[in-house]
């Protein structure tokens, strides 16, 4: 026994195998119970009831209405909201809780590395949060069908949802490894989620208010000497003039929106919306958010066209076309958001690994090794 075991032990173990081992242990420890199944059923039921009620509220019927993507978008946001509520519970106490339960130290004493332990725990938590997403998936699909959302929109949305759940799990893991108390790490994880999901919007609003400053805008308007007795003016009867007034400069604070998971989901979802001149008309819900955020990034237009008389058959001004083009060409906001969230998640995981590595150098105050 002895020599055989030792020979196998000394051989470098596959890290992937270790990660799976820890993940399986974690799932068995935390997940194997009837309560967990009940939680999944409750989660699915809530999303289902929400979806059906919403469909009837918006369309008056299940299918056939033209809801401009409101049902799909709202169901996706609802699932994200619920996911943000559930995910912190999966990791926010996973390391300091195990320390308290006396189940972490024996694992650390084995040949498993800190990286293996942390990644295994993260994988388990992510799989658990993906189970919630899977339960919600049928309703996302129903939402997509009802709202005529393109296939790719639905796919990308689900992938981004999955990514966001991973980010929240990682943040919870970092905090649970850094703080001695399980209550403290749970509160801080929820605070982090609230910061990303809600406070970014609040701070964007406040930042926008602070960004208001006198701005000179070129205005294309009917000239002062136009004789209104001649009837409605045509586009040739208008001219440029400059006006200075207070305007918010969202181009300074747009990045706050980029950190918001809801914005990331909305912006990442491909939209087939026709965004040319019809601002916010004929737009899907997620598409509208996408363009609103991208417009916020561009800041206020340097001109405004007030010469909208007889507008229907006239060409747009070159400036307007250029603005529309800038808006179209403006790079997406979601890569910034996903990049930032990736950094957050990777940072949290690295912190967790450092805190789980043995032999311990400095101990976090208030913790015991075993």
């Amino acid at each position: 026994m002895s020599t055989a075991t030792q020979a196998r032990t000394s051989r470098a173990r596959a890290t992937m195998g270790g990660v799976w081992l820890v993940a399986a242990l974690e799932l068995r420890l935390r997940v194997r119970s009837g309560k967990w199944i009940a939680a999944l059923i409750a989660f699915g039921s809530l999303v289902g009831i929400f979806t059906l009620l919403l469909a009837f509220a918006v369309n008056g019927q299940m299918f056939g209405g033209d809801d401009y993507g409101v049902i799909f978008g709202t169901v996706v946001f609802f699932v994200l909201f619920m996911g943000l509520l559930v995910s912190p519970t999966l990791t926010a106490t996973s390391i300091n809780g195990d320390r308290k339960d006396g189940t972490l130290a024996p694992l650390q004493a084995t040949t498993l590395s800190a990286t293996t332990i942390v990644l295994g725990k993260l994988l388990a938590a992510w799989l658990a949060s993906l189970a919630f997403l899977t339960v919600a998936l049928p309703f996302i699909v129903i939402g997509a069908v009802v709202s005529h959302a393109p296939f790719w929109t639905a796919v990308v949305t689900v992938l981004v949802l999955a990514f966001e759940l991973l980010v929240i799990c990682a943040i919870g893991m970092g905090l649970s490894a850094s703080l001695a108390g399980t209550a403290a790490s749970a509160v801080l994880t929820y605070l982090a989620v609230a910061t990303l999901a809600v406070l970014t919007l609040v701070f964007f609003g406040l930042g926008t208010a602070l960004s208001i400053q006198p701005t000179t805008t070129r205005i294309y308007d009917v000239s002062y000497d136009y004789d209104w007795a001649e009837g409605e003016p045509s586009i040739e009867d208008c001219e440029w003039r400059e006006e200075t007034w207070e305007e918010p400069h969202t181009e300074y604070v747009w990045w706050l929106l980029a950190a918001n998971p809801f914005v990331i989901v909305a912006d990442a979802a491909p939209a087939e919306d026709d965004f040319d001149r019809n601002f916010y008309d004929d737009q899907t819900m997620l598409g509208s958010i996408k363009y609103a955020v991208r417009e916020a990034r561009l800041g206020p237009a340097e001109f405004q066209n007030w010469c909208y008389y007889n507008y229907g058959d006239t060409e747009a001004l070159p400036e307007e076309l250029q603005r529309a083009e800038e808006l179209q060409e403006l790079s997406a906001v979601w890569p910034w958001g996903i990049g930032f969230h990736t950094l957050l998640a990777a940072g949290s995981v690295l912190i967790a690994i450092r805190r789980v590595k043995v032999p311990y150098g400095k101990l976090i105050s208030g913790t015991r090794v075993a």
Partner: protein
Amino acid sequence: MDVVDEPAAADPADAALTATGVRRAFGTVQAVVSADLAIAPGQVTALIGPNGAGKTTLMLMLAGLLAPDAGTITVGGANMRRSPVKARTRVGWMPDTLGTWDSLTCLEVVTTFARAYGIKATDARARAFELLTRFQLAEFASRPARVLSRGQKQRLSLARAIVHDPAVLILDEPASGLDPRARAELRTVLRELAAEGKAILISSHVLAELDEMVDDAVFMFAGSTRGTEASEHLERARRRYSVIGLDAAALQKALAAQTRAWETTEAGAIVEVADAADAAALNAELVAAGVAVAALAPVGSALESTYLSLEGEQR
């Protein structure tokens, strides 16, 4: 008690685990000031000291979980600082509690740890079952660990700790909270493991229990291990035999006629013998001299008397 002729692991080269000049502070609290110990293969060594003496801290460092501020720990030639994974593989560590494994079954707990040490899945399961059977836990294999009694939990914890067949076994207070029967079983198991050649370090408060199972002892007071001084003390304590005669006066008269040092007690005398064989010789001499010997046995607990006298010096 197995009387040891020479201090265990006197030569560190033979030791399965050695610690030299180990120290560790937590903030301003110096938990371990200076610890030196060497534990030999095939022997059970006790780590004895009052609460807060730094025993658990020292054991955590020996198990590779806590980094010493200074000093070296070597396990079978592997330095704990330089090759921590290699060193950790050679150590089995049993903390004072099993840990809360909730719904995990006994078999799953042991199998998981076998795999965590890199043993293949099928072998791991077989090894886990073998250990559960050995420690009379086979019937609990598929039951959750939380239903076990304290004694069963300690046996499961021990199975978990030796699942990778380590050369060194470090047990932190394994006997605490056990009923007499469970303690006796633990003693048997540890002696068996020692007979297989494992070096075992065990900390405990129940000195009388340790007396019957350990070969050697390391005393620790206020963060420092007490080496040679304690060994001499222990050695002397182990050689003190109490002799009770039916007629105390006749016994004392016979003792006065021989060369061993002795002192009188109410029922007879305490004699310092050279070793167990010498004790037997003493008995024969007394019987030959016509003394009716009612009892001839080691005096009380050698560990306890050593502990008390060392602790007395500490104050």
